[in-house]
């Protein structure tokens, strides 16, 4: 087992860090960007496409680069570090991953090439009222209409659901199971309303009223593929969260050494520095587990569900701790939108809301606890 990155991976990290750091290194720019629509920087998105980053996980024949989860994780971590609001994980990893896995060659070439080129923004409309991260759909139903299909019902929340040019939509099939469909942004019967998430992201309510849709690939039950894609997304989002947490800790440590109270800098107060030390511990543990899950996804895909759940639990635990303590250690300034730290906390919350809280992941692990004698990470 080896946690070190090779030179090419290192170069990728530096290229991405350079690009997004230049754009969002000044937090005020990030704040301005998320205040306007579509909530991210279209130009930066193009630059990421040019850099090949949007095509990383896809096969070359589909218009991608043929890299893997480790490279995706590097990109996600660097985006997380500066709270870049670009929908990389949602569009490329989740929606793109589903298109790549299930799509016919024609669908793949229609969706993935343009996605990788930054021409088409893709999203996966899946969550529904009352759903809690399960891989199935109930509220949106698919019905046959001649040779084609129509979807009816409401999806909410859908990441960047209004800006998206193309949507993949999960829907309950007439004979049971959950199918996956491609709905174009201009389809009849499709209406969409956007709103801000707590971290400045975008989420939509998507209403479908007998909306024409094309099954992805051969059609049929896609539950297992959806579940796999959600787990791969958790791994990528875990990398993104690591970047955010590392940044939060760096900012907090910097604040402790510069802010004065009672005539001395805050790092004079041992009760505060010890808590910062505990944050570092949490961060290191999270890096290890997320790194491992990323390698599991790359080399031992059968264990992806277990590894992604384990990494997510740790990410959620550390995210709460670091998110809460980073604000507390700042004091009042940590509560203000002008200052960067609170947005880190908010972003960690939004990631959990999207992909599952610690309680959710722990519940999943608890039911399997009697199935194994011990957890052995070494393969």
């Amino acid at each position, binding site marked *: 087992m080896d946690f070190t990155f090779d030179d090419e991976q290192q170069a990728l990290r530096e290229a991405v860090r350079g690009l997004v750091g230049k754009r969002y290194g000044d937090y005020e720019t990030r704040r301005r960007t998320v205040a306007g629509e579509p909530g991210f920087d279209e130009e930066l998105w193009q630059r990421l496409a040019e850099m090949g980053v949007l095509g990383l996980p896809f096969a070359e024949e589909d218009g991608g680069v043929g890299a893997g989860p480790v490279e995706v994780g590097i990109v996600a971590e660097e985006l997380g570090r500066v709270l870049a609001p670009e929908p990389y994980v949602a569009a490329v990893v989740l929606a793109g991953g589903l298109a790549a896995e299930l799509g016919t060659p024609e669908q793949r070439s229609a969706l993935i090439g343009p996605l990788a080129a930054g021409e088409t923004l893709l999203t996966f409309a899946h969550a529904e009222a009352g759903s809690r991260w399960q891989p199935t759909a109930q509220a949106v139903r698919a019905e046959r209409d001649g040779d084609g299909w129509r979807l009816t019902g409401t999806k*909410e*929340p859908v990441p960047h659901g209004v800006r998206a040019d193309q949507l993949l939509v999960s829907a309950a099939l007439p004979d049971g199971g959950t199918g996956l469909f491609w709905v174009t942004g201009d389809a009849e019967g499709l209406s969409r*309303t956007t709103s801000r998430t707590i971290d400045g992201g975008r989420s939509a*309510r998507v209403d479908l009223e007998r909306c024409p849709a094309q099954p992805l690939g051969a059609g049929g039950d896609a539950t297992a593929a959806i579940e796999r894609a959600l787990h791969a997304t958790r791994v990528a989002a875990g990398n993104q969260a690591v970047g955010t947490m590392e940044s939060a800790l760096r900012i907090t440590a910097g604040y402790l050494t510069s802010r004065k109270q009672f005539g001395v800098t805050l790092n004079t107060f041992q009760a505060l520095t010890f808590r910062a030390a505990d944050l570092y511990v949490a961060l290191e543990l999270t890096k290890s587990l997320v790194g491992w899950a990323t390698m599991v996804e790359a080399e031992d895909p059968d264990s992806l569900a277990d590894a992604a759940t384990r990494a997510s639990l740790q990410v959620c635990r550390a995210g709460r701790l670091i998110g809460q303590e980073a604000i507390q250690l700042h*004091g009042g300034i940590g509560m203000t*939108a002008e200052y960067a730290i609170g*947005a880190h906390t908010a972003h960690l919350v939004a990631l959990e809301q*999207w992909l599952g809280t*610690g309680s959710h992941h722990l519940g999943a692990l608890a039911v399997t606890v009697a199935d194994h004698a011990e957890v052995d990470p070494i393969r």
Partner: protein
Amino acid sequence: MQLKLSAEDAAFREELRTFFTTQVPAEIREAVLARRELTKDQFVQSQRILNAAGYAVPHWPVEWGGRNWTELQRHLWHEEMQRAGVPAPLAFNASMVGPVIAAFGSQEIKERFLPATANLDIWWSQGFSEPDAGSDLASLRTTAVRDGDHFVVNGQKTWTTLGQYGDWIFCLVRTDAEVRKQAGISFLLIDMTSPGLEVRPIELIDGGHEVNEVWFTDVRVPAENLVGELNKGWDYAKFLLGNERVGVAPVGATKRVLAEAKKWAAEVGQLDDPLTAARIAELENDLLALELTAVRVAANSADGKPHPASSVLKLRGTELQQAVSELALDLAGPAGLSCFAGEGALAPEWSRRSTPVYLNLRKASIYGGSNEVQRQIIARTILGL
């Protein structure tokens, strides 16, 4: 040791419960229960109803509207109010500037301000914290220089909660820069419509506008607006902050949210999840212990001075307030992403509110004497460390 309320106290409690749930408009109480932000009018309307019935400032001196209640009765009043979703009388008026004026102000200042303060005819803002004076409040730098029968005030205050509604602001200002920092501070009342006074909003991480900066540029304040003696303001501030801590443990409100959270848990099918049930049970027990401690401490502070254990109430009260908001966040799950979607979203209001409320309540352990300050007080004052 006596568990049961006396017949008199039981009747008192019942009377309050009836009053709060029938006399304060349901619309206001529902807004509180839904954890919405209240409008200025709602605050004012509610406090005037309380004041008319003698329920706004029961802890003030009797001649200014106080009721001479026992500490247990004050506790029952506070709890029943929160339980019914009645907004507490504005703390800046009822718990802060009012008691200071009543204790240290001249007869003239009392007559001028106390009735209007009790009735929320004047909305007070608090001008204590400054950018470089947070937990270390005494290092404040806003100055007030005597010029004839006025003070001329210059400087900046921050974290002024609901300052956008303020009519007047009570400020700690430096009136003597030559002495040790606590010794040169005075307590001054300033009309917020004065020329040179500007209120600027601060956006918070939950997207709300709840606190402000207040800037003073050569603001002229009549000298008669000084409360008590010149350069004694630090003593009055300590008196005030002691009061503040007692009121700050939001036991009843947190209990109410937890009771709501059980309904929410049932709604999302989580109440029969054993982990969720255990988490709720533990929170209920923690809140029970806090509530009982509030009663026990109230009974031991009959001389009007805060019991040192009131730091326990602030510290633990905010921890539990935050823990319950975290429970709500977890129950809301993915629906919390629709936090700013408004009524157009399918997600119910409680789940949309869960995200901003969770973030907003991070302030609870920072404002009003941070939990670090409370630990310091406990360690020093009580444990002698």
